[in-house]
C-alpha cells in the first residue's frame, strides 16, 4: 500500500505550518523525513493520522489506497487509524499507558479492530513481543511498562503499533530519547520489520546518521516545504539543494545531526 501526500497545506491558528508538501511512501520502503525544528516534519506525520490540534485547517490530499484521509469523516478515520496506519512516538516513557499491562495494551487494540477472541489475541500478543525481540514474552506480557527499560518500552510501543497489522507506520523521532547502543537495536528492528512485513515506513528524524542507516529515500524539509527528495545515497553524498548541502556541512565531526527543538 502506498501513502501519497500531495500539496499538503496545514495552518494552525493563523500560522501556515505546511505550505504544500509532496511525499510518497511505498510498501517495503523506509522514507526518511529530515528537518530542523519548525520545518513541519512532525506536523506532517500528525496530519496523516488526523492528530492535528483543534482548529487546524488543511488543504491538499493524503491518499492511502485510493482514499483521501483528509476528506474522511471522523468515524471512518478512526477505523483506519490503528488498523491501517499506526504511529510510534518519541518518548517511550509516555507513549504507553502506565496502569495497564503490556498484554492488555496489545490485545485491546486487536480485539477492537480485528475482533479476535481473547485466547487468540493473547497468542498474537506473544508473537508480537517475540517479533520485537522482547525476552521471555510469556512473562513480559503480564508486566507493566515501568518494569521495562527505555529501549524495551520502545520495542513494546512498536509492537502495539503493529498489533492490528497496519500497512503504514509513522515513526516520529523513535530513537532520539534512547542511548546510542539501544538506538542501534531499534533501528535494526525497524528495518527488519519493514523488510519482513512490507510496511511503508515514514521515519521523521533530525539525525542524518539515523537516516543514512535505515532510509531508502530521504526528503528534506524547510519552512513547511520539501526542498529536496531522492534516494538516500544520492541526497546524502551529492545533495542538489543548497539547504541540504549547508546542513550536511554545518555539523560537528562526521556525525550529522540537524538542529532540532530545544527540549
Amino acid at each position, binding site marked *: 500500500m502506498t501513502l501519497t501526500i500531495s500539496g499538503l497545506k496545514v495552518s494552525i491558528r493563523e500560522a501556515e505550518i505546511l505550505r504544500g508538501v509532496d511525499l510518497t511512501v511505498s510498501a517495503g520502503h523506509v522514507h526518511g523525513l529530515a528537518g530542523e*525544528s519548525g520545518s513541519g516534519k512532525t506536523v506532517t506525520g500528525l496530519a496523516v493520522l488526523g492528530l492535528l490540534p483543534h482548529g487546524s485547517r488543511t488543504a491538499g490530499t493524503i491518499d492511502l489506497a485510493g482514499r483521501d484521509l483528509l476528506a474522511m469523516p471522523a468515524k471512518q478515520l478512526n477505523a483506519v487509524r490503528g488498523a491501517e496506519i499506526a504511529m510510534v512516538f518519541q518518548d517511550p516513557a509516555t507513549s504507553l499507558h502506565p496502569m495497564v499491562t503490556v498484554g492488555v495494551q496489545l490485545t485491546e487494540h486487536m480485539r477492537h479492530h480485528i475482533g479476535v477472541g481473547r485466547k487468540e489475541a493473547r497468542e498474537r500478543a506473544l508473537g508480537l513481543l517475540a517479533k520485537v525481540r522482547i525476552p521471555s514474552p510469556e512473562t513480559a506480557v503480564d508486566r507493566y511498562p515501568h518494569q521495562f*527499560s*527505555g*529501549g*524495551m518500552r520502545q520495542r513494546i510501543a512498536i509492537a502495539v503499533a503493529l498489533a492490528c497489522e497496519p500497512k503504514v507506520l509513522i515513526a516520529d523521532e523513535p530513537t532520539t530519547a534512547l*542511548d*546510542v*547502543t*539501544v*538506538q*542501534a*537495536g531499534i*533501528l*535494526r528492528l525497524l*528495518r527488519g520489520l519493514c523488510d519482513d512485513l512490507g510496511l511503508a515506513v515514514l521515519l521523521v528524524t*533530525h*539525525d*542524518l*546518521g*539515523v*537516516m*543514512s*542507516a*535505515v*532510509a*531508502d529515500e530521504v526528503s528534506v524539509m524547510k519552512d513547511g516545504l520539501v526542498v529536496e527528495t531522492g534516494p*538516500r*545515497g*544520492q*541526497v*546524502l*553524498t551529492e545533495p542538489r539543494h543548497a539547504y541540504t548541502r549547508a546542513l*550536511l556541512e*554545518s*555539523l*560537528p*565531526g*562526521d*556525525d*550529522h*545531526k*540537524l*538542529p*532540532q*527543538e*530545544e*527540549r
Partner: protein
Amino acid sequence: MTLLTIDDLVVEHRTPGRPLVRAVAGASLTVAAGEVVGLVGESGCGKSTLARAVCGLHPAAAGTITVGGHPVTSLGLRSRHRALTGAQMVFQDPYASLNPRRRVGAQIADGLRTADDRTTAPEDLLERVGLPRDFAERFPHEFSGGQRQRIAIARALAARPSLLIGDEPISALDASAQAHVARLMRDLAVESGAGLLFISHDLSVVRLIADRIAVMYLGKIVETGPTAEVWADPKHPYTRALLGAIPIPDGRGVLPTELPGDVPDPADPPSGCRFHPRCPLVMDVCLDREPEFGPVACWLHKPA
C-alpha cells in the same frame, strides 16, 4: 598540575525498600590544569553521580576525591569551605539552573563575590560568554535554553574555579547550539587555566572538545586515553560497541552494530567483569575476576 584526583570512588544510593545500589563502584580519574576530560557513558552508568560527588553533592562511601589539593567534603548546612568553591558545576537543565526571581546580573555577581573579585563586572562575564552586556538587567525567563546555559557558565566562571564540571550541559540544547556551547566551555576553562570535566552521553561532541576520554559502564571506568587514540582504536569491547553503534551519515545504508542484551541492574551487577554477559570476546577469567586496573579495564589488555 593535577587539579582533580578521584581515587577508587564509591558512591552508594539507597532507596527505601530496595537493595543498596553502588552508582559508582570504584572509579579513578584525574584532570590536570588546562585539560579537558570527557566522561562518556550511557544512561545509568553513574557518570552524573560521579560529577555530583566531585562537588560534594553526594557523599563518598569509599575512596577519595581531591580538588586542588583539598579533600572534598559533602555539602552540609554550613557555607562551603573556600577552598572547595574551586569546583563549580554547570547542570543539565537550563530551565532549572537559574533562579527565576532574580536578575541575571545579580546571579553572576554571586560568583564574583565567591572569588572576592571586586574589579570584574557581571557584564564583562556576559561578554565573555558571547551575550550582550545589557542582558544583566533581565530575568532568566526572557532567554532561550542556550542563552541560559551561557549565563550559568558565566556564573560558574565568575567564581574563578580551578575545576569546571559540566554535567550533560548541552544535552537539552539545540543541536547546533550544542557544539558552540561545548567549545565555549572548553575555551573559557582552558584560557583561565582551569580543568574541565565534561560529562555527556553524546560522543561526537565530546570528541570535539576533549583531550582525554574516559568511558563508564555500570559504575566503573572501563577505558581512558587520549581522545584521538580511543576514537581511532578503541580497546575495551564496550568502547568498541559504543563507537560502532553511532550511525554515520555516509549514505551507504549501513546499520550500526547492535549490542545485545540490556544494561544489568546496578543493584545486582554481574560477577567478575561487569560487561561479561554482553561481551563478544568473553573469556573464563572474565566471569570470576573483575579487572581492577587501567587504562583499559579488560583482561584482554592487562598491562604486563
